[in-house]
């Protein structure tokens, strides 16, 4: 997985609450047994005029010239709520999104982000609105800088600190693969497994 250290990019506003994973990638856009080929379906219900079609809806933020190359999303509370589909994160990543800034996130979505090198960045609603207003003055010039090791977001010449759980930060900064990391604990897990078989034998009866 790519390491996440710093990222400088255009920040697109999607300032509404409860942007759910069905909106991020509608189920009808998940066409193949694959983690690839999903970027085109990102926000399909808002981005295109017709379900299944590809004619751009001009008012949608990603269809505006200034935000077309956005790699950061500014949004409202509970971003990524709903379905556990990791396709939402794969679609965002394939489109080129590296950071989503929101006051809160759906739990499964936030975990999925961290497994895929995307940063779910928590800031207050008012601060996000201020950043969006500053970006809107000139989106391509007024880029947002995110520094994960420093836990800092820079916009409008000011730096804002953000919180992130240590494990999530480490996974992203070091680009770790969780399975490989856990496999180093194999002996402990196997011991626990054997103990559990004797402690709760009915779970292994069938």
């Amino acid at each position, binding site marked *: 997985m790519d390491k996440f250290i710093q990222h400088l990019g255009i920040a697109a506003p999607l300032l509404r609450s409860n942007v759910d994973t069905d909106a991020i990638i509608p189920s009808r856009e998940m066409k193949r047994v694959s983690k690839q080929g999903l970027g085109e379906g990102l926000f399909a219900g808002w981005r295109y005029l017709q379900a299944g079609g590809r004619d751009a809806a001009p008012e949608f933020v990603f269809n505006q010239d200034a935000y077309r190359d956005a790699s950061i999303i500014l949004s409202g509370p509970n971003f990524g709520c709903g*379905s556990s589909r990791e396709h939402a994160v794969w679609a965002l990543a394939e489109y080129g999104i590296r950071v989503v800034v929101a006051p809160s996130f759906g739990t499964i979505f936030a975990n999925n982000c961290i497994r895929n090198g995307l940063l779910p960045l928590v800031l207050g609603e008012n601060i996000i609105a201020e950043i969006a207003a500053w970006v809107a003055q000139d989106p391509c010039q007024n880029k947002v800088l995110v520094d994960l090791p420093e836990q800092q977001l820079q916009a409008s010449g000011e730096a804002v600190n953000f919180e992130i759980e240590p494990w999530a930060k480490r996974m992203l900064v070091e680009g770790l693969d969780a399975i490989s990391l856990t496999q180093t604990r194999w002996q402990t897990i196997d011991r626990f497994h054997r103990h559990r078989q004797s402690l709760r034998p009915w779970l292994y009866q069938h």
Partner: protein
Amino acid sequence: MAQTLFEKLWQEHLVEKQSDGTDLIYIDRVFLHERTGSIALSSLRADGRKIFCPEQVFCCMDHIVDTYPDRSDETTMPSGRDFIVATREGAHEAGLTLFDLDDPRQGIVHVVSPEQGIVQPGITLVCPDSHTCTQGAFGALAWGIGSSEAEHALVTKTLRVSKPKSMRVSFEGVLAAGVSAKDMILHLIARFGASGGSGYVLEFSGSAVADLCMEGRMTLCNMAVEFSAFTGLIAPDHKTIDYLRGKPYAPVGTLWDDAVQYWQQLSTDKDATFDREIVIDCTDIEPQVTWGTSPEHAIPINGLIATAFGHEAQASGYDKALEYMGLTAGQAIAGQPIDCVFIGSCTNARISDLRLAASILRGNKIRPGMRAICVPGSMQVKAQAEIEGLDRIFIDAGFEWRASGCSMCFFAGGEHFDFQQRVVSTTNRNFESRQGPQTRTHLASPATVAASAVTGVITDPREML
């Protein structure tokens, strides 16, 4: 030290604490379905990784399969066959238990698991499906994960988890006639917001929860994720034990006695403390229905559209939701004309749900021109309903009577409700285009959906009891 039920389950499964602050949690059982499980299995194969304990992994075909009587691997969803075949092949190759399309036990994962006795008190169970919290009704720690975490659980038998906080939600008092578990959970979400449970494991308790049957408890836990909770759970009691007795995967012989003895210890200690407590007086709860595009947009059925009760109204969000739904703030929700009704999903398609809906539909017909569909939660639910003659009541009323699956709880590219059709649905999500392109979904209980089917407008079920 006094412990909550959640604390006990966590300790029971804690392999070790990690240096990064997460806990390594042992996972007893994993469920997969063809939508996300197919990808996890294919990915493991591509990476050359092996499933550690295949006998504890179960697969359902539910998300993409058609629900027509003559269904096959070919689906109305283009390419659905690929997901079905990949899951079947992956399951066979890895030696997993598969409830395949032609299996009389087939159905929605969170209906099948309890029916088979696979979920049991005191276990950890995960599935790459957000509604895995449903199974917390058995006093299990059951939660939804992504595909990557599913791969992690399959290969390592563990997950790395940052320990959630705990919240007790006590529903006290007695539910009024015509009010059910669905109304309880919609009421909670509306009052505290769709992110009100974020970061918490919920323990549902109180006299109204004790009074619920196991199926009602599953409905309650099902929508914990719609409250943004990590999961929900309910301490096992005699109803839990009675439900599991004799189920195919339930313990037998002396091991049953051992298991029951353990299950009876699984409750929150009297002096244990939670990070947060919410108490709800159930006499306050009326039948609920949503008007907007988030489950938090639920109001009492006699209420007015876009009037918040409880958490702060977000005017901008309300405007978007109203526009999408084709409604005006201040209108009554009751009496809104509808095009379709849907009874199905892991939320409300168990036998008690079907019995309740049938009790209202009996001798009635749906309003002419409407479309009404009933999709039982499993083929076992369907068979039981047919033994009781419920299928005749649904069919005589004008419903389509289907085979089991997730069906039109969501639009996967195949079958769907039509453009801007207004649907009253027993499902869990009223998101934009969830049930079809630009469809307008109103979430409600089976009783409200059945009553509305008869009148053709959103209807208070208490008028028809």
